[in-house]
């Protein structure tokens, strides 16, 4: 028996001496399940609560403006306000989804948020450009459009960052799986003939 096998055997015997199936272990199992289901931390709840509240506020303000502005306000501007109300509602829905789900998976949530931020900013910039063009308000609209473009670049950088992170994880996983298969092949090749699996 090799040193490693001896050490592993001793470890297994030591681990086996600790109680494993006690009443406390069952309580721990149930608690762990609950932990998995409701793992959102206090600061995370606060953060998502703030996002939800801000989204709801934006939705209410933009929506009520879209509905209550006098008839002299062009339809294009009303449409833009309705769009902002929809964006606010979407952020509230995202925050509600996370809070109800109770799980804090940063990468998944960051991906959804980054896609929403980029999509909404892109739509806003296009809509803003169209409104400026239709209403011929270049002097007033240009600074707004410039701000929108700057935000669009920021959103694109955030989205690219998240996509790179996801791709990196996926590539690393593929490489590790490939390494694992190579190891299996090497181990199989090193086995004596009698132990090699026969052809399928």
């Amino acid at each position, binding site marked *: 028996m*090799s040193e490693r096998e*001896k050490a592993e055997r001793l470890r297994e015997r030591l681990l*086996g001496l600790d109680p494993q199936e006690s009443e406390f272990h069952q309580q*721990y199992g149930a608690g762990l399940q609950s932990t998995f289901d409701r793992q959102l931390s206090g600061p995370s709840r606060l953060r998502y609560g703030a996002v939800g509240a801000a989204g709801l506020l934006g939705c209410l303000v933009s929506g009520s403006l879209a509905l209550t502005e006098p008839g002299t306000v062009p339809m294009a501007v009303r449409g833009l306000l309705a769009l902002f109300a929809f964006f606010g509602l979407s952020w509230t829905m995202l925050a509600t989804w996370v809070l109800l789900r109770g799980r804090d998976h940063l990468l998944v949530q960051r991906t959804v948020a980054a896609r929403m931020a980029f999509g909404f900013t892109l739509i806003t910039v296009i809509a803003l450009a169209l409104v400026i063009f239709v209403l011929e308000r270049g002097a007033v609209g240009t600074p707004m459009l410039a701000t929108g473009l700057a935000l669009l670049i920021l959103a694109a950088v955030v989205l690219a960052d998240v996509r790179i992170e996801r791709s990196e994880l996926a590539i690393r996983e593929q490489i590790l799986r490939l390494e*694992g298969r190579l*190891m299996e092949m090497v181990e199989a090749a090193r086995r004596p003939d009698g132990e090699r699996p026969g052809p399928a």
Partner: protein
Amino acid sequence: MNRQARAHDYLWAYRPTTGDFALPTNRQILELELLVLRCQRGERAAFDELVHAWERKLFFYVRRFVANEEEAWQILQEVWLQVLRGIGSLREPSRLPVWLYAITRNHVMSHHRAEYARERWLEPADPVELGRDDDHTSFDDAELVYHGLARIPPVDREVLTLFFLHDLSIDEVAQVLQIPPGTVKSRLFKAKRTLRDVLEAQ
């Protein structure tokens, strides 16, 4: 630390007298890295596998310092919560064992904060000259070792527990215990001697 270097430097395989290292397979380390990546991608089944793979070992570690079984399981539950929340930020998946033991140790220390001051836990061991190595093959009666661990000082118990769990290299144990690798070696040597004395006295 890369996988090859880590595989060559396992604590259980270390022999101070000869400087030899047994060569463990890289397969387990690779599987560990894969598991971490799956957890980072949000795969729920991967978390279950992670818990299944490490629960007994971490419980063994906690139990060596927490006499009450219920409290030990509660501490382990807190450890998993921190692992769940933090695994996304683990940049080097191969460092999972160090990370897990460090988190567990922090929770155990928090539990004992009133009882033991941090300084006491981290106080350097008296310098010990390395002599003949008492490797794990000398401790072949698991039950005696198990009960013997409870009768040696915490500082010795901690390093010996990690030694018997043999998940970490010397450098990694040093990182978990926040002491230099040389101190780990001397502390391990002293701890083995203490345990041997305890076992012989029984």
